[in-house]
């Protein structure tokens, strides 16, 4: 295997920059998804993104806008349903999941379908990096401004309401942030794998963290680490740009396995004391 550093071009730096920013924002949002046991929801959402990719292909505009167009209305409706209607949420998610995949497959021809499902970092340009910077800044401002409220809601929605937190408003912004990150992430790792970008770093962090500060820092670290490893591997070793997504997820899963093992060893040690 011939590993060289020739691949570190300006184009690759745009890819790496976009990937790292999306991973960082995704791993932070993931904390609030995992702690609220909403991992399945993010899975359904990422599949809703697929018809969005189809829409973008047919109307000939950027995937980012197509995905947003598909996601935002679905998210807002989901938020409303969650507040107003008593329905088994996982059933609803399961239906949306399958339906979106079907529509996506129907709208997209072969090559584009593969790109939609697994992403293709070869298509990421300077323009995408700029969109990513602006969008991730918005998500970062949201998380920083409402950090306390997000943690309170994740701890207990009931308690947050007692504390007069604007739960409905913050949940709506949270869903919009999720949509934005999914729309950005689709290009890099695709609709099938994007939810792992949100879920795995946060779950790994929760395995190790002893308090909320550690949870945030570790999730960020694991998210960025997995993404960087995946992109470097896809670009330098495999030299196949559509490999980035799967490699990122394999790297994330390896980190999760490691943190899980550490957690088990720790709990064995503490019960032996």
């Amino acid at each position, binding site marked *: 295997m011939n590993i060289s550093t020739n691949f570190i071009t300006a184009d690759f730096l745009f890819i790496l920059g976009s990937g790292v920013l999306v991973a960082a924002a995704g791993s932070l949002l993931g*904390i609030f998804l*995992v*702690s*609220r*046991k909403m991992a399945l929801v993010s899975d359904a959402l990422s599949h809703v993104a697929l018809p969005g990719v189809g829409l973008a292909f047919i109307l000939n505009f950027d995937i980012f806008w197509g995905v947003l167009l598909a996601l935002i209305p679905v998210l807002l409706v989901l938020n409303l349903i969650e507040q107003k209607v008593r329905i088994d949420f996982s059933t609803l998610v399961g239906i949306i999941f399958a339906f979106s995949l079907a529509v996506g497959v129907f709208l997209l021809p072969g090559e584009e379908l593969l790109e939609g499902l697994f992403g293709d970092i070869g298509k990421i340009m300077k323009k995408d990096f700029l969109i990513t910077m602006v969008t991730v800044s918005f998500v970062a401002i949201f998380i920083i401004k409402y950090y*306390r409220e997000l*943690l*309170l809601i*994740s*701890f*207990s*929605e*009931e*308690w947050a*309401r*007692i*504390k*007069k937190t604007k739960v409905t408003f913050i949940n709506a912004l949270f869903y919009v942030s999720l949509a934005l990150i999914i729309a950005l992430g689709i290009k890099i790792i695709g609709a099938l794998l994007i939810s792992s970008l949100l879920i795995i770093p946060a779950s790994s*962090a*929760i395995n190790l*963290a*002893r*308090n*909320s*500060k*550690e*949870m945030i820092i570790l999730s960020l670290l694991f998210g960025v680490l997995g993404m960087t490893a995946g992109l470097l591997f896809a670009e330098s070793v495999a030299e196949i740009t559509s490999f980035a997504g799967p490699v990122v997820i394999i790297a994330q899963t390896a980190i999760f396995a490691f943190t899980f093992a550490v957690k088990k060893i720790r709990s064995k040690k503490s019960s032996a004391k």
Partner: protein
Amino acid sequence: METLLTVRNLKISFNGDTEPIIQGVSFNVKKGEALGVIGPNGSGKTTLLLAILGILPYEGEIKLNLSSEKKEEVIGYLPQKLDINKSLSLTVYDFLKLNINSRSQKEKDLAIKEILAFLHSEDLKNKQFIHLSRGQIQRTLFMASLLNNPQMLLLDEPTTGADPTAEETIYKHIIELKEKGDIGIIFVSHDLTIVSKLADRVLCLNKQMICFGEPREALNEKTLKKLYGEDIKLYEHQH
């Protein structure tokens, strides 16, 4: 004594229900006083507390005489049951900090230190929720309800899930808070012995107000039969 809360002719109904949850409830709470609320399950005790907190809509009058309009800042509330997500890596310290209203980092740390010491719970400080027992969670929520120096404290069955020792500790602290004299307390309890021991006045609730007054006068056999049905008997402890 200064009156902190006046409730007049309170009526609460849920959307679409023809029968109100509670109606015709009038009482007041003074500074330094503990009001015990008793009644069977489903009698509207929790609903009453949520209306005072401003979470539920109501008809009638709830007049609070507190230093701020922001109820979440001046009223401490301990719910009976709370659905919490333990998978979040929050420690007791993290959680208490989240519950302190705008103060500097140093002041927050000091307030947490004081409240942990007040409830002799320093050992819980760095524990995550996933490692806490039900009683310890209840104690942590109790600490959170006290953090912002509330002028009014609403406690919904404060010893739910606590073992007898923890129960005694919580009640001991409620007495201590009452004796300080600068706070009004409303507590819901099923335990009539506790109520007659702790409460200056008692409110009996069963969708409507059955009694309101000092425990010795209000808690008689007639009232209790009206409250819990014909089978109940009142035994006086002979000391």
